């Protein structure tokens, strides 16, 4: 078998040409996600079942940017962005017309996505605090805040 393999070298020039063609056509564009975020899901206290919030408004406290969600209906989950320039940031979450705040404390560090896309900022979530107007509790499930679409916190209402 090995001898046969070694003597199939008539195909070598073709192999070299094909691989050369592939190598020369590697695209250099960025197609990857480069923004990291805290992925949060809504759950019902008691049953632990997933919940759809009737209306969601989300705005960052101290940010000049607009709201991320503005009275969006029937949301099961939301994304919150952390400020890499500070060790903590606060979000104002309005659920069904009731305001609550969630404050995150974390460490930030750069992470290479790819040569084409460059860098993103990842965070290591330390803890979070929140008000309890409509929120019952918040549980941290995954402390690694990355570009991967995995749930980080569960918000129980």
């Amino acid at each position, binding site marked *: 078998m090995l*001898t046969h393999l070694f003597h199939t*070298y008539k195909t*070598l020039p073709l192999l070299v040409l094909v691989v050369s063609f592939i190598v020369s056509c590697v695209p250099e564009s960025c197609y990857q996600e480069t923004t990291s975020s805290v992925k949060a899901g809504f759950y019902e206290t008691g049953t632990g079942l997933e919940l759809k919030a009737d209306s969601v408004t989300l705005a960052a406290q101290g940010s000049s*940017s607009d709201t991320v969600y503005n009275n969006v209906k029937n949301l099961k989950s939301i994304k919150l962005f952390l400020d*890499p320039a500070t060790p903590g940031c606060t979000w104002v979450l309005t659920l069904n017309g009731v305001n609550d705040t969630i404050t995150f404390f974390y460490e930030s560090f750069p992470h*290479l996505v790819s*040569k084409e896309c*460059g860098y993103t900022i990842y965070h290591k979530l330390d803890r979070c605090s929140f008000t309890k107007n409509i929120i019952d509790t918040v549980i941290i499930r995954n402390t690694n805040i990355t570009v991967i679409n995995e749930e980080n916190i569960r918000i129980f209402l």
Partner: protein
Amino acid sequence: MRRTSGYSFRLMLLLMLQPLVNASAQDTVNFPLRLGAGAALFSPVSALAGRYPGGFEASGFYDMSERITLVADGGFSSFVQENHNYGYENNGIYFRAGADYNLLNPVQAAGRYYAGISLKYGLSLFSHSNQFIEYDSFWGTYTTSKQSSFHGAHFLEVSPGVRAELFRNFFIGWGVNIRFLVYGGTGEDMRAIDIPGFGNGSKPLSSGINYFISYRIPYRHKRVIYIKPVRETEEGDSGTTRPPGTTGTIR
């Protein structure tokens, strides 16, 4: 360049027409075992396009037998990249060691032609830094940088290629490199954008094309008996073929 193309074409033709060659069942070849040194040449087009880092690579060769050549490469590279959201710099040296296996039989190769596969282990020592990293987020643009840090990486290389003697003892060839990163040395977050001798360190697989020249002098001649494949033609035989390329050696 035209002469190089001519030699490459001859080598390709030699490979493709090999089954049509009908010679005696056994050949004795006085095969020159060579040792030498060479240098890698990067494609002028790629260099102009700025796709490859600057640097220099030299190699040493030692024919162990008519099939196997020991190879050691060493080089340095300096890589600078500015993208829309980062500035990156990398300087380092690298070593690769392994062997070339010539798939041509000794009669075809005759110490002048090579078409085969090279397997090498590579070690890279480098320092890298980021002049700036810019990150645009909901909170605005965040800018940071990273101080220079020193790392070691190692990798494996598989490289099919061809080589021909252009004129006496002077060889030219090219090959395709496929490299597998075994250990990047930098951790998951700040992977090297370029690893000297390997290529793009943000991915576990790197590929490229290499052109090289070398000067190889014979240090010894080895008599090699090459037994050609013979098709049994006697009546009643089912036409089986003996394994090709059986070699014996007279030292």
